[in-house]
């Protein structure tokens, strides 16, 4: 199936109408100046593609040199584009949990604004009900069973759901969101990826390989 996908910044020598996968060479480099992701990402992608197109040769730092001073290249990091078809997510749901409502409100504002800037469709933003974990413990170290003390832990939630997002965009956006997650806040990301029916399920194999007439075990 070929879809007309007009990706707006289309590279100069790309003619195939399939959705492209862009290589995140060093996203971290742009944000915080640490470059330890570039090598591993590039190495993994290069293995399985039929058409190996644009390959820019960056000064690849070995992954063990994390603690040594890395030289930031003066030219901007180039983007590698491979022919591997992009993963498509029908729904990506981000649930953040924390003990403080104000922090979650600020984070929600940040996440929604970032999504709007990057052009990601937000389908729903809502606040699931908070959960309170209560414990009742003895107040004293020894005896005094009638005197207790109660503690509670409140967990507040916020959920942001995105729909129709590609794999590259999701990867870039989620990494940005997760790097700016404040302390004391946890996140769960549920992704629903869409795939076609695989080729081996289109037709039953018994047509090509008829079974002999023997009793099954």
């Amino acid at each position, binding site marked *: 199936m070929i879809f007309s996908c007009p990706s*707006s910044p289309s590279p100069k020598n790309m003619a195939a109408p399939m959705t492209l996968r862009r290589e995140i060479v060093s996203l971290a480099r742009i944000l915080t100046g640490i470059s330890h992701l570039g090598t591993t990402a590039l190495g993994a992608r290069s293995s399985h593609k039929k058409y190996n197109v644009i390959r820019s040769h960056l000064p690849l730092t070995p992954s063990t040199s994390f603690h040594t001073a890395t030289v930031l290249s003066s030219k901007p990091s180039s983007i590698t584009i491979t022919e591997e078809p992009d993963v498509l997510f029908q729904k990506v749901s981000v649930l953040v949990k924390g003990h403080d409502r104000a922090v979650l409100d600020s984070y929600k504002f940040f996440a929604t604004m970032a999504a709007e800037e990057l052009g990601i469709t937000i389908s729903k933003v809502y606040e699931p009900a908070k959960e309170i974990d209560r414990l009742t413990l003895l107040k004293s170290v020894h005896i005094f069973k009638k005197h207790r003390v109660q503690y509670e832990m409140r967990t507040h939630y916020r959920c942001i759901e995105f729909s129709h997002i*590609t794999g590259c965009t999701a990867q870039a*956006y989620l990494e940005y969101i997760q790097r700016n997650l404040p302390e004391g806040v946890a996140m769960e990301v549920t*992704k629903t990826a869409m795939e076609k029916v695989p080729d*081996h399920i*289109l037709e039953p194999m018994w047509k090509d390989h008829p079974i002999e007439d023997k009793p099954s075990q």
Partner: protein
Amino acid sequence: MASHSSKVFLCFLGRANVRGPGLQDTLHRVTYSTAQSVNTAAGNRGPPDRGGRGPFTRKPRRDPGEPRTEKMSVDQDWTAVYPSATPFRSNAVPLPVRMGYPVKRGIPPEKKGNLELIKIPNFLHLTPAAIKKHCEALKPFCTEWPSALDTDAKCDEHFPVKSESTDYVSAGPSVRNPAARIVHLKVKMSTLNLDDHARKKMIKLVGKRYCKASDVLTITTDSCPLRKQNLEYAMYLLTVLYHESWKTEAWEAEKTVADMEDYSWEDSQSQKNILDTLVRMKVVGEGEGEEVREQLLGRREVQDYKDSVTRLKNEGESEITMLQYKDAVKKVFSL
């Protein structure tokens, strides 16, 4: 050595004095044998400087000066002041912020030296201007969604297989979460190439994983340690189910009425009942035997009755089905 140690003592006492007024009472009560009295130590600012010699000279303390906020202009670049996540600095944030509990009907304490403002995570590095800058840098790494797949219906039509998995991000001793390996594979049975027998066999094989209302088969795998492995295992299960359901085994011929998924009226108790009743009512006239029954079966009222009973049994009781049954019964008995 004794005098030196006493000077060190005084140094500590002197510092303690400067910090809080309450400590002075305790100092007066404490009996130390010191060369100098406590009062003279209170007057000094630190130990006596020995002219720059010796290991215990301190740097002269400078005045803090005016806070940086006074020198900030209104149109400065805030992203340069707070480029990344940093704790709150009261002399670098030009906002008159107050935080804390107002003790004794007072007001919340000011921002200078306020621990509450330092403890709470702040978003000063993520102002709208900063977010815009970051997103501009991220835009080259994003791809567009194919415009042909704008509705969910089209997505389901072209990509019917959905795989769902969850990632977890939290602080703790370990980055890993074992729940992240779980994969749910969802397929709509109508999209698979199955004939009637294969469909029924597949539903029987999967059991509870099939939801009749939404026609969705859900395969959940968590037996492998990695998500990739679980996904491949789920696809393998789907493949095996598909191919096995097209096979017809020898023992499938022993399927009884109790195994049937749908109700079929032929050779059922309901058919026998209605035919017996009609024969007894002598609707056709005189005559017994098979031809009479077959003649009765061919009648339109009996066919309608058959449809209504089948519908009742398969779909369950509702207003429409009950009314249809009532009408059919009335017609058969010509009431």
